[in-house]
């Protein structure tokens, strides 16, 4: 009888100790706020210069945009475009009312044939640079602070168009840390 009573007491004590430890573990934690990256900054020269472009032709810009990481941390760039009202960007040979705009980081003007649709064609979705994406002999991946890159564009005109008003195409260069 005494043994049974002793076991019950032990069980109650055990349960109490479990309750007590879980109550301690449930203490809410203090809030910690850490700024891990300061001073993100990007600078570039533009707009991009093209020569004469005719229907169905492809042209590489005649001057590069110099993109500078003027922040204090390593940055990776992402690129995207904004379509003009009358045309749609494609990542293939453009048909009527379509165009393809490609981007490549390179020290000198790249030949037209060095751009590929898979690696260099821009879309409206912001796409991060990688060892291959938008890469030439330079990349927009992990660019150290103060370093510059030369960005070249290739414009492939629509095969035909009925658009008669002037259009605007914007290429956005976005920097993020890392």
């Amino acid at each position: 009888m005494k043994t049974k009573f002793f076991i019950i007491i032990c069980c109650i004590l055990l349960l109490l100790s479990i309750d007590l430890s879980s109550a301690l573990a449930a203490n809410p934690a203090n809030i910690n706020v850490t700024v891990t990256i300061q001073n993100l900054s990007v600078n570039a020269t533009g707009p991009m210069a093209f020569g004469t472009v005719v229907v169905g032709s492809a042209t590489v810009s005649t001057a590069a945009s110099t993109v500078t990481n003027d922040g204090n941390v390593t940055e990776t760039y992402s690129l995207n475009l904004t379509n003009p009202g009358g045309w749609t960007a494609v990542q293939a040979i453009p048909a009527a009312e379509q165009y393809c705009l490609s981007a490549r980081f390179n020290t000198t003007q790249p030949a037209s044939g060095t751009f590929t649709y898979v690696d260099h064609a821009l879309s409206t979705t912001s796409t991060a640079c990688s060892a291959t994406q938008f890469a030439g002999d330079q990349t927009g991946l992990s660019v150290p602070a103060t370093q510059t890159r030369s960005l070249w564009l290739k414009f492939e005109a629509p095969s035909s168009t009925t658009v008669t008003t002037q259009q605007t195409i914007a290429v956005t260069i976005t920097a993020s840390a890392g």
Partner: protein
Amino acid sequence: MKITRNVIFICFILLLLINTPFKAKAGGLSTQLGEVVIENLQIGHTYNLKKLVNLQLIVTNTSDYAVELKMEVLSPDKSELRQEAEPIPDPSWVKLSQALFKLIPNEKAISDIRLSIPDNDRYLGKKYQVTIWSHTLAGSGGGMFLAYGLKSRIIFTLDKVRQAKSEAVTSSDARVDFKLKPEEIFLEKVELGRVYDVEKNAGIVLKVTNPNEREQIFKLQSLKVKNSMATLVEEYQDAPDTSYLKFSENRFVLPPKGTKTIKIYLNFPQKKEYSGKKYMFIIHALAEGEKVTTGVYSRLYASIK
């Protein structure tokens, strides 16, 4: 008919591309908020980061011309996720006090960030990431324009336990806008078996600035990347031992608006395994508060001789 259409098209293209002003202009944006990590938020609460730690999203137009700027809250792409965080379940948890701005050169866009966590137990203990994309908008007129953008990362964890509503901290006098400079330190040809004085060898010292109107105690500590909120940089290994990185002072008091200069020393022992390697350390400056602790990171990269 076809010839006429092609003539019109060529004229149009000429307008589009040649009419573009070719004089190169410099454009850009900058922000102090590259990445912030907030730990132990409570479910069922709304946090205004300005009230919590005096943190706002401030973006400066560094272009030499006026721009229109838009701030957008986005769920990050998988490739953008850091520190094993999940994408925020709903970007509408984050609200900005203002999202559209017209900025003249050097003008700043300032927006409060408000983070509302739904009152649902399934979010307890979770870690989420959200992106705020600040970008310029295309100008008017025809041609090929460059626009600029910055992606600020906010990573936050939710406490594993629910706190009584009355006890939850949603505001404090803590500030996370104190300065720790430089943000990155690169050291080359660090010799093993001797103390490397960073000021003597590289001309670099740490500077901590207290922006407060009151006195503040600061602490400095060296961290391994794996014990921090930072991400290891490619080509570098994590610091083998945090005791190899020392400071002239680890704890100090700064008067209002005061700045302290701290010397840094690296002391790698003479071990063959370190020779020719590259190591990354995190320097963590902390301002301790009663309920809210704030911190800022700097990164030190050491290439061993």
